[in-house]
């Protein structure tokens, strides 16, 4: 079981590292979106500190959504996906492997980058720490949920826009508690309750979404 998981993670990460532009596009998109907000809202630090958690989280949401289309597309095009579907190993497990790899490539860089961007918004060290934790717990949930939408829209003409429409409503709880954790910290309430809820959502998503994604993949490839 674990061997299969490790194998598929290693395979996907290797492939992604050989085409680095894909990895960097997501990260650069995230950085640009977050840097645009001060230009739109104004450079007043009090306002920026107030909107920082929301802006960083919405940026992470959009960046993670942008990367979703790539999740199964390459494998679908060159026929690897069909082999994966035929493999004797349980499909939900393989799906988890693919999602983990996808998160390592597109999600983890965002988590690492977020504190630097948080500094632009004059967040305190404490708030930055909570932000990293919230992203660390929240972005895998986004990848897991997004995998369902990516599988459902596999190979469709309007795939990219459709993914956004399907997945953004499902992202709302993560957004609320992710941004809420940082906000609760800056207002002195402490974000541990939010972080616990994010962790609970991650566990729930880890249990449920691979099954739905596996079913969706079977539907999509006939």
């Amino acid at each position, binding site marked *: 079981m674990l061997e299969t998981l490790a194998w598929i993670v290693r395979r996907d990460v290797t492939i992604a590292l050989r085409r680095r532009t894909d990895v960097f596009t997501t990260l650069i998109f995230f950085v640009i979106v977050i840097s645009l907000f001060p230009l739109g809202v104004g450079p007043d630090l009090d306002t920026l500190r107030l909107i920082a958690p929301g802006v960083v989280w919405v940026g992470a949401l959009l960046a993670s959504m942008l990367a979703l289309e790539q999740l199964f597309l390459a494998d679908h095009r060159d026929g690897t996906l069909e082999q994966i579907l035929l493999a004797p190993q349980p499909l939900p497990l393989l799906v988890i492997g693919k999602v983990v790899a996808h998160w390592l490539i597109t999600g983890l860089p965002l988590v690492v980058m977020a504190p630097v961007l948080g500094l632009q918004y004059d967040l305190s060290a404490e708030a930055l720490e909570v932000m990293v934790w919230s992203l660390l717990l929240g972005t895998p949930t986004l990848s897991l949920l997004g995998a369902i939408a990516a599988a*459902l829209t596999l190979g469709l003409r309007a795939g990219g826009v459709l993914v956004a429409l399907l997945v953004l409503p499902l992202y709302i709880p993560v957004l*609320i508690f992710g941004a809420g954790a940082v906000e609760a910290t800056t207002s002195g309430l402490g974000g541990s309750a939010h972080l616990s809820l994010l962790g609970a959502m991650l566990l729930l998503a880890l249990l449920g979404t691979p099954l739905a994604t596996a079913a969706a993949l079977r*539907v999509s490839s006939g």
Partner: protein
Amino acid sequence: MQNRLINWFKFSSPATFYPLARRLAPIFWAIAIVLVAIGLYMSFFVAPVDYKQGDGYRIIFIHVPASWMSMFIYLVMAGWSAIGLIFNTRLSFMMSQALAPTGALFAFISLWTGSFWGKPMWGTWWVWDARITSELILLFLYLGYMALVAAIDDRRRADRAGAILLLVGVVNIPIIYFSVKWWNTLHQGATIKMNGQTSMDETMLLTMLIMALGFWAYSIAAAMVRVQSIILEREAGSTWAQELIGERA
């Protein structure tokens, strides 16, 4: 027992369901029109004026039943999808698709009337209240479902993909609802609430129930009409559909 089971599944085939849908549609149209007519009359002339909100509250008789129906229809669609995935019945997916526009319509009406109600009562068109926000998200879920089904050309794939999305949505709805609710209380945003604890007048409640039943009948009627088109469109190649079209022509 065996007999009853067979009867129960008789209408699960599009060919046998089509005539039934044709017969049921006018009946439910009639029920809907009568109930909504009674309900509207009662809501305008019989129900008493609210002591706080005056006549403005009367929009509740459209607003609340529409919200109920929008939520209920989503559940029904998810139920049909589950049945479709389990028993592999084509008609179940058709029912889901026939219901979707009605559900989206009710979600939209609910937001629209809520906005009209909010302006005179709260002084604003929109408040990020937990219920309004979750209704908005529900509308997004409906739109996502319809967009997904419309985007897939292969019927079989569209049916199943839509069904999976509906089931994922149904699991998510409670999570979304509670997170929005907690988010709202944490933000301490809109503290304006509807009359709070005031118990509702009996005539008002009765009127609202009549309207809700009327909307219910309308939903069934609209779904029956829509499902007929969907059946004919998909079964156009089959013998029974050809004969039917031939008869009418």
